[in-house]
């Protein structure tokens, strides 16, 4: 009985500990827009497989957080002025915090 309780406790701890996130803060030079769209997709080269999971609009210096499963992702930022950012991330056990540094193309 005790073993079962320990197992349940362990599993519930795992469930809590397993929360994975990709967070970030937007940083854009003055010639970029005041807002950017942050996109989260599967990390795939092929367009048709690069499925978009979520996206959120973030103001300059604003912050965001995506809650994800373990896996490989692309975090992209783009804005109306042609500024961009792309980072490929692999999450297994630890969350990631990004500095989303936009670059004018």
């Amino acid at each position, binding site marked *: 009985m005790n073993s079962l309780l320990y197992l349940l406790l362990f599993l519930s701890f795992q469930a809590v500990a397993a929360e*994975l996130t990709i967070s970030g803060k937007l940083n854009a030079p003055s010639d970029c827009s005041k807002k950017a769209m942050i996109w989260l*997709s599967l990390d795939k080269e092929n367009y048709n497989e690069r*499925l978009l999971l979520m996206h959120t609009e973030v103001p300059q*210096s604003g*912050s965001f957080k*995506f*809650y994800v499963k373990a896996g490989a992702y692309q975090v992209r930022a783009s804005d109306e002025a042609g500024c961009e950012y792309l980072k490929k991330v692999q999450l297994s056990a630890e969350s990631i915090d990004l500095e989303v540094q936009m670059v004018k193309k």
Partner: protein
Amino acid sequence: MKILLLISSLFLITEVSAAGLGPCQGNTIRVWTQSVGYACVPRFNPVQQDPFCAYPGPGVVNPFQGFPGPLYQTQIMPWWAYQGNLYYPNVRYPGVWSYPGIESQYYPGEGQVFAAKPNVYIDSVHQNKKFSFRFISEKKPQFLATTPTLDKNLGWSGKIIEKDKFEVEDIYYDYLFYDLRLPKEKMQFTNGVCATREGAIEWMLKDLKDMKYSALSQQDFDEHWRVKIPDYPYYCIYPQYNRELDPIIPIEINLEQTTFIRSLYVLIPHKKEPDGEEYQAVPLPTKDPSEFRPGAKIQRENMFREWGVAFLGN
């Protein structure tokens, strides 16, 4: 004239070759951006014909054969929709999609209802007033995304600025945003309406207007959901108002003279006109939802209003 056309053709064909891209295949359209250059991406509207690529008929030589397609817009879309379409095949869906809903296995947590983009707006009499907004359910909500990030108390705190903005950690936000998964069994699927896709969008906009949502929030709703609601001919809408949402995802707003109006529209797509005589996985709505709509007659100093659209997960 023929010589002139021939010379023009050769010139343009050279231009296309320089771009390193041949004619776009069916159901795709040529676009150009500063970062990517030319690319073929799926059309937003697959039934729209490209007039310059239409074959003029048998026995007629098409002088434009092999020319690049024109750069034109099938309908007015927000900038982010065009950019998103360049990078992702499913930008016109609310997430990873397989009819009739979201592909749940790509997202963490549980809950069959994917509440996409609840946005929280403020309409206040104050130019500068402290506030805090906290998720207080016993069990931590299954978030999928937030902007800005939540603090350690699962909330946002800061100031209401210029009557209609939030300031959180010194940054101004037009709205607070969160995505989350919710349990389907705690939602209502009796009150609602069924309509065409366009009719459904118009109905939801009118519903927001009747609850006195701000012009900005209505505009954001219109812009976002005209892109993100998949292109099926019919939808049934099951509005979840405060009556349903407050128990499922309770919120505490620490500010006097405050009202929080909530509306989350669960959408079920239909490939043909919904028929009450046929089996439906989700029963067709039978009651007018308007009688359950939160009242908007009493205005208080701080009116928080939240809208969202949700889809079921597969």
